Every structure is written in C-alpha cells, then in structure tokens.
C-alpha cells in the first residue's frame, strides 16, 4: 500500500493541452474518486498514474518514488477497465493468474492467490469458464479479481460500472466499497457519475476542463461547493440557480431577478448590496411557505412522484426551480405555489467568476 502524490501534472496531445497542472494528494488506503463530465481529463490523469500515458510535465509519485519514467509493471498498480479488458481466449482462472505467470511465480502460489481472490469475489464456481460465458457483473468481478491477485500498491478504476445496467451498478458499487474496506488498498476511481462519487469516495476530486475544481469529502463538497460548477455537478437533482442582484435597502436582504421576482436572502448578505450574483438553492432546501414566511411564487410545471419523494418542477423568474418533498402534497400543474428557501442553505456565487462568496 502506498500514497499517491500528483504534483503540477500537465498533459498535452500535440499542441493541445488537456490537463493544465493538477495537484492531488491521495493518502495511504484512501478511496479517491475523480469525477467530472466527459473530456475533463480524469481518465487521462488515471492513465498517467498507470503509466499508459506519458506525463508531459509535473510529477507522479507512488509510495514516495517518482514514477514518471517507470514502465507500468514496475509501478505496482492494477487497473480495472471500463470494458473489463478480459482476455477472451483465457479462462477466468488464467485471466486472474496471467500477471503472476508472467512474473514466473510458483504454481502453488498462483493457485493460492487466485483461489483467495475468487473466494472474496464469489467467483470460485466460474474459474473454468471463458469470459463470454459470464454475465456483465461476473466479468466485472473477474476484472477486479485480476487486480486483487496482484496485490498492488494502488488500485485504479476507469469507469468500471459504466457498462452495467442500473440495478447491477448499484450492487457493484456496494461491493467495491466493501472490498475496499476489507483490503484497504489505496484506490483511485474515475467516474462521470456523481452519485457513484458521492456514495463510494472517502474524498472526491471534481475535475473540469483539465483542472481540479474542488477536492474534499463528499458531504463537504455537497454542503460547501466552491464554485457554480461544483455546485451544479454534485447533487441530484441539481442545485437551482438564479441570476440577479443583491438588494438590502428598503427591506430585508433579497435577490432581485428578472421580471421583478425577489428571492429572500439571510441578513448576513446585506453587505453585498448591489452585487451581481448567482443564487443557488438545492431542491431539498425549498419548502412550502407558511403564512408570513418569506417566499417566492412559482407556477407548477411538472410533478414527478417517485414514491419516496416527489419532485416538483416549477417556473420562477424565467427559469426552472426543482424542489423535492418527502411529504405528499396535492400538487397540480398550472397552479401556483409559494416556495420558501431555507435561508441558511442559500449559496451565493460571484456572477463573473462563479466563485462562492
């Protein structure tokens, strides 16, 4: 096991720089998720840790050694690929034993390690099968088994659950997390799915356009996003944003948006009077206004009940507001409803830079 340090790493393909100086510290035994929209450079970063991509500039250290010039096999990392990359002509056993056989390990040792990994993953009945004879979830397990057998310093996961159906994805998510709690191997996990990131990570690194937008514990990112990108990316349904100007004169602090709509703000924001901002509020922080509560009127557009909760899409200030209710209300599209934001849950971001105020 080892810690991974990424220092000022850059990557260019030809003249195009896709990663613009990334710093990430991953401590020993940590499960870090790199998350971001496609094209943000997260997979490239992972492949640079693995040694599949050359590092243009900066340093990657694994267990205290700079690995920039080290071939992948000396880095002591194992990788799980999105399409599993199982050798189709080898049985499950041989797929898992391949790396050890290449190293010239003793047959008994190979056998023991493969059996152990198969045992952990419940693959014992399938050892004599070919990958094609397995279901998607089983193949995914074999890919992980192949990584476990190597007992590496670092596990690298490149969108390993993307090819699975929704139900299996949730199941495998739990399994991977459980596996990590059991093996405690440093893991770097790449995904574009923020729910995967939230549920699995010890720490999330949000990437966008080749830079790190924010890194931190999942709930910290959720509660305190540093900018509008992270605020909008983390959380589902996404945070509601409204552009406008802070007003504190002639009444309580509020946000003036288009069409004369005013959204209530806490008194703490009075100092920002006249500033152009983006107002952010998460769907679950909107409640139905009680008499006398400061609120905003909106017109109900769509009601989406899921049983456990109800998603309400309504129109406010020329945009959409999503609100989530755990209680059941008799909403009807076309009617008006008074929504009250929880004032201490409102986020304000600078309209120009998108940075949190």
């Amino acid at each position: 096991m080892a810690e991974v340090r990424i220092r000022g790493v850059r990557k260019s393909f030809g003249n195009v720089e896709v990663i613009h100086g990334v710093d990430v510290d991953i401590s020993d035994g940590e499960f870090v998720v790199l998350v971001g929209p496609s094209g943000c450079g997260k997979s490239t970063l992972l492949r640079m840790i693995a040694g599949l991509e050359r590092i243009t500039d900066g340093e990657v250290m694994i267990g205290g050694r700079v690995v920039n010039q080290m071939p992948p096999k000396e880095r002591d990392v194992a990788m799980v690929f999105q399409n599993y990359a199982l050798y189709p002509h080898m049985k499950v056993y041989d797929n898992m034993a391949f790396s050890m056989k290449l190293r010239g390990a003793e047959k008994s040792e190979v056998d023991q390690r493969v059996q152990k990994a198969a045992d952990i993953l419940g693959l014992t009945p399938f050892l004599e099968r070919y990958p094609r004879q397995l279901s998607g979830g089983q193949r995914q397990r074999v890919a992980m088994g192949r990584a476990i057998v190597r007992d590496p310093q670092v596990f690298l996961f490149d969108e390993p659950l993307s090819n699975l159906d929704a139900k299996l994805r949730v199941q495998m998510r739990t399994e991977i997390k459980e596996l990590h709690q059991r093996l405690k191997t440093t893991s770097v996990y790449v995904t574009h799915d923020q729910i995967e990131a939230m549920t699995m990570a010890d720490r999330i690194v949000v990437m966008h356009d080749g830079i790190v937008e924010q890194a931190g514990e999942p709930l910290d990112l959720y509660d305190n996003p540093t900018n509008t990108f992270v605020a909008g990316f983390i959380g589902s349904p996404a945070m509601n944003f409204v552009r406008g100007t802070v007003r504190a004169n002639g009444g309580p602090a509020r946000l003036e948006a288009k069409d004369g709509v005013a959204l209530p703000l806490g008194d703490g924001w009075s100092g920002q009077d006249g500033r152009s901002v983006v107002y952010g509020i998460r769907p679950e922080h909107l409640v139905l206004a009680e008499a006398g509560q400061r609120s905003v009127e909106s017109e109900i557009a769509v009601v989406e009940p899921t049983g456990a909760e109800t998603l309400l899409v309504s129109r406010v200030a020329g945009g959409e507001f999503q609100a989530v209710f755990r209680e059941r209300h008799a909403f009807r599209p076309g009617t008006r409803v008074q929504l009250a934001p929880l004032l201490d849950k409102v986020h304000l971001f600078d309209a120009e830079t998108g940075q949190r105020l």
Partner: protein
Amino acid sequence: MATDAERVRAQRTESFSDRWTQLKYDHNWLGFWFMLPAAAFLLLFLTYPLGLGIWLSVTDTRIGREGGFIGLENFEWLNEDPVFWLSVFNTFLYTTVASVIKFGLGLYLAILLNSHMPWKAIIRAVVLLPFIVPTVLSAIAFWWIYDTQFSIISWTLIEMGWIDENINFLGEPNNARASVIAANIWRGIPFVAITLLAGLQTIPQSLYEAATIDGASRWQMFRHVTYPMLTPIIAVVMTFSVLFTFTDFQLIYAMTRGGPANATHLMATLSYQRAIMGGNLGEGAAISTAMIPFLLAAILFSWFGLQRRKWQQGESDD
C-alpha cells in the same frame, strides 16, 4: 346446382390459393425458391465441370476422339510416370515453402502496418499493389527480372562486386524453383498481410493496456494476446493461401512453362500440358483429379480451424 366441372375448377383454385398462402407464409418454402438460382449456377459452373473432369479421368478421351471408360488405367499409368511424381513433389515444395514464407512475412508486415507510422494509409495501399497487378503481367515482369542477360538482380550484384557472371535464374532446376516460389510469395503476401491486418485491428487496444499493466513484454503480448486472438483468421487466410498456391497455374505457365527439365512443373501445369497441349484429355483430367484428395485435406483442415473456438462462444460483450 354446381356441375362437376365447376366443382373441380373450384377445387383447383382453392388448392392454388392454398399453395400461394403457403408460399407467402412458409419461409422455408419461399427460401427454397430464392435459393434455386444460386443452386443452378453452382451446378452449372462448379458441379458439372468437376463431375466432367472426374469422368474424363476414367476415360481415354483425346481431343477429337470420344473416349471410352477405362477404369483406373490413367491413374495406374501416372503412378509409373516419374514426371507426374516430380510434379507432385514440386507442387508440395512450392506450396509448403511459399505458404510458410507468405505467412511469416505477411504476419510481420501486418504487425508493422498496424503500428503508428507516417503515411500509414499510403503504405497500406502500396502493399496491396502486387495483388492488383494481373498475374500474367507480373509474371512477365519477373521474367525480365530473372532474364539470363538483362536481369536487374544479376546486374546489381555484379555492379556491387558480389558475383562475376549473370545468375541463370530460370535455366537451372533449383534456381528456377526458388525463382518461381519468390514470385509467388511476392504476389501472395498482400492477401495474407491485409487479411491479418484486418484481424489485428479487431483486437481491442484495452487488452494490450491490460497486458502492459500485467507486466507483459512485447513478445509476451504477441505470444499471449495477439497470436491466440488471431488464430481463427490465420486458419482462414492460410487455408485460402494454400488452396491458391496448390492450384497455381498462371504464374508458372507464364514464366517457365514447367521447365527446365520439368523442374517447375506443378500438377496444374502438367495437367494442362498433357490435356490441352498433348491432347490426352483423359490423362490430364486424371492429374487434376489427383489434386482433389490434397485439396480436400486442406479444406478439412480449414473446417476444423474455422470452427468457433470455445472462447468465442456465448454472448458477445459488445
């Protein structure tokens, strides 16, 4: 009241419409009719000539004279004919040496073309050239390359000071064999290389990445990933290559006509010489028929080679 004639006509229409309905809904019935034209072509252009050839091989037909059935006499005759056995030997030598080298060089070329290099597309197109040029045309070009007086190879080697006099490429038995084999290899490589290249391109890149991380060297990747993944296509391409080479006629006939001293006679050229040039259709047909067991063996080889391997069975992962 309906007359008998009317009743019969009604019955006929009914049975006709029945059959029409059957035709419309029974896919096997419909498929049978769709298959007929293809079957007719195969019968006319494949089965009939093959059958005729086999029939001729058991007759003493000559050009201009209808022959009679003589049993296996042609084969008994050939069995004692050293030229026939020489042609069998030549055919095997030609096929074995050419196929092995075509496979080796073709695979090497395919791997080379599969890697990143500048002007990849143009180089791939150039590799196909020998395949595009008509056989006889390239045979004539080789004829010049191997010419006793004007051979460019002899000239180059003399200029470089390696040899003193022209090489007698096509005039000396073993030189002639090597020369025609070289020409066949030149012509056959594009087919092998391009087909194997297509096979190489179906191997997912991620397998190599996984192997890299598993610690495989370049040779180990070839040995444990590329080669096993390529075996199905190797079986196909080599079967075809063997069949083409074994039955080769044009190249030899245009370059040496079987000479010198029958040293480059293949079964196909000998058959042509005996049947068409010599007029002994029966005997020539017997030589051709004698190729059938060898070709069947090659096809059987491909039959087993082409069978889906166990790892290819089951649902695909795409």
